[in-house]
């Protein structure tokens, strides 16, 4: 097709990805890569580069939408980012010699897990700081407070080493398949580290941008970031995520999440199939 039409289609799809990304709290990578690869026939290598750009756009676009926040735990995010950025460098290194079919199949698996976890409610049981016990979380000054309707509540951060380990894997995954790994990050913080859900999602949003930047830098040097593709993706995802972040307070997200989960599951199965049969 001609470049003009292609660019418009990519832009439109990216707006949708950014919207879904900020409304459901999950990255746009899950939408961008299937759109580019399955619908528009773009090579997976270009798509991964473009998807990482979309993840940064979604993260920064949503963050820029809010002036007052107070949820993000910067110390925690930064500490865990050591694990994810090292993981990202490792993942990019692994990706070099990994066959495309394997990458596609792994991506499909990530999509299936994303679909599953979108439908499962959060289970965090935040642990208020009460006894001042000397957990690793307390010693690293990760325990903090967050705003609730009842005022500022404290919470404790648990399972720091386990969280660190999972974050390393999240980084590897992010660089390997071009997603933000927001699902993995929220899972680690919500379930393992027992952090309040809103803190997990906002801290994850901060983190996915940083992780994706580490991977994107490497893919830039590998020639996998094609400007004709990355430009409409970036612009679309920025617009979509900014609008979505503003809409979030007013929307009932439940139905949207179900539709999103179904679409993503279908895309996941397709990617696994394509990867396994080599039709990439």
């Amino acid at each position, binding site marked *: 097709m001609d470049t003009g039409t292609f660019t418009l289609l990519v832009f439109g799809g990216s707006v949708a990805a950014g919207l879904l990304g900020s409304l459901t709290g999950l990255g746009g990578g899950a939408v961008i890569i299937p759109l580019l690869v399955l619908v528009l026939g*773009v090579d997976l290598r270009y798509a991964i580069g473009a998807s990482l750009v979309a993840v940064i756009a979604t993260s*920064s676009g949503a963050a820029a939408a809010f002036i007052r926040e107070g949820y993000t735990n910067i*110390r925690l995010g*930064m500490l865990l980012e050591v694990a994810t950025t090292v993981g990202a*460098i490792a993942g990019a290194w692994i990706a070099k010699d990994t066959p495309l079919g394997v990458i596609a199949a792994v991506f499909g698996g990530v999509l299936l897990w994303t679909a599953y976890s979108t439908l499962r409610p959060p289970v965090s049981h935040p642990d208020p700081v009460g006894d001042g016990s000397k957990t690793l979380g307390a010693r690293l000054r990760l325990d903090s407070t967050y705003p609730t309707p009842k005022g500022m509540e404290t919470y404790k951060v648990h399972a720091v080493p386990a969280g660190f380990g999972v974050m390393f894997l999240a980084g590897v995954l992010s660089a390997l398949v071009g997603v933000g790994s927001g699902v993995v990050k929220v899972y680690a913080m919500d379930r393992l580290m027992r952090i309040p859900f809103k803190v997990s999602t906002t801290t994850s949003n901060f983190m996915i941008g940083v992780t994706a*930047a580490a991977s994107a*830098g490497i893919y830039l*040097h590998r020639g996998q970031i094609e400007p*004709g593709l990355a430009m409409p993706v970036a612009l679309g995802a920025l617009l979509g995520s900014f609008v979505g972040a503003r809409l979030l307070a007013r929307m009932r997200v439940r139905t949207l999440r179900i539709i999103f989960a179904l679409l993503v599951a279908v895309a996941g199965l397709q990617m696994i199939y394509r990867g396994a049969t080599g039709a990439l």
Partner: protein
Amino acid sequence: MSELIVESRGDGVEAWLSRLLTAGVLASAVVSLLGGVLYLLEHSAARTGMAEFVPVEASLNHPMAIIRGAMEFRPRAVMQLGIVLLIATPVARVAFSLVLFALRRDALYVGVTVMVLACLAYGLAGFGD
């Protein structure tokens, strides 16, 4: 305790950070859009070639070369500059946090943040290849 409250209430510091991010994101969007317009003016009727992977030309893979190309208003370089600016926004956010931790004399987290910046620099400088 007061340190926690400043961080959590989101006054001043968080607002500055948000303004920084918004500025970076806007700069990236404006540059990308400009590049996109220049690009489409030349190429909108041409057939797209994204089905076959060919590594992007070397002049678009390194920040210095991208800036040079953008200064000559080459459409693909201008678009790529916009992308580089976007990639720089989370890096700027981390650098900003480094300054904040240093101002608070938080030696541990200055160290942590330096490690993150080192990884980011490693990737962006092209060593991970």
